[in-house]
């Protein structure tokens, strides 16, 4: 007597889910920096709008970067108080990530 077990369908479904998870995970950093950029743009002190326009989120597979001009506005100078806009955005998104608000889509 013999028993046969064919798990090709199971393996195929699993592979499909893993591919989807991998793709979604790769997009996660960019989603997070996009959210940071949006938040930073909405809170940055505006004069000409140049700093807000210079806030950029870029990224590719599994990596992303937020670039913001004007570190003197973010950190202040000896003659001007700091008006942080990047670090609050990062703090909010980081804690939202820790709370599970950013997850790969399945």
């Amino acid at each position, binding site marked *: 007597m013999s028993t046969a077990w064919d798990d090709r369908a199971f393996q195929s479904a699993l592979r499909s889910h893993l591919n989807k998870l991998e793709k979604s995970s790769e997009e996660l950093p960019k989603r997070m920096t996009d959210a940071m950029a949006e938040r930073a743009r909405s809170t940055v002190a505006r004069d000409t709008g140049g700093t807000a326009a210079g806030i950029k989120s870029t990224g590719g597979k599994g990596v992303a970067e937020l670039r913001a001009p004007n570190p003197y506005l973010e950190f202040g*100078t*000896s003659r001007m108080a*700091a008006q942080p806009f990047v*670090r*609050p955005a990062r703090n909010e998104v980081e804690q939202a990530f820790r709370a*599970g608000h950013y997850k790969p889509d399945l």
Partner: protein
Amino acid sequence: MAASLAGAVKAHIEAQSLGIAVFRDSAPDNEPYPYVTVLEDISTVPDGVFNAYDDPQGHVSELVQVDIWQQSRNAAKVKVESYTLPDAVMKALHGTLLPTAPKQVSGCQVVSRTRLLEPENNIVHTALTVQVRRVLV
């Protein structure tokens, strides 16, 4: 017990005997360099590892900016910036529990350090960002 988080950071840095004045928010006019200023609450958000519906103490992640202001060169144009002072302040803050804080602190981490030059004012500014995990009540 300090009345505020910035006061607790100030007390903690002063306790290191670095020979440097520390002020909340901003230094008085004509204060001689070097000195440190502490800007609290540049961002405070709920700590993500706690469940919002099961956290009676209200754990938060607060960012505090600690600025070290130094003269770059003296009147004889000789470099007088201390390269050890930012390290000493960073070392003092990274990992401390701020024992005089008004609310319980579960951890402090220096999450960034940036050195900014103001050549026109002859100033070197080192900005530390400190993440303080604490409770609200």
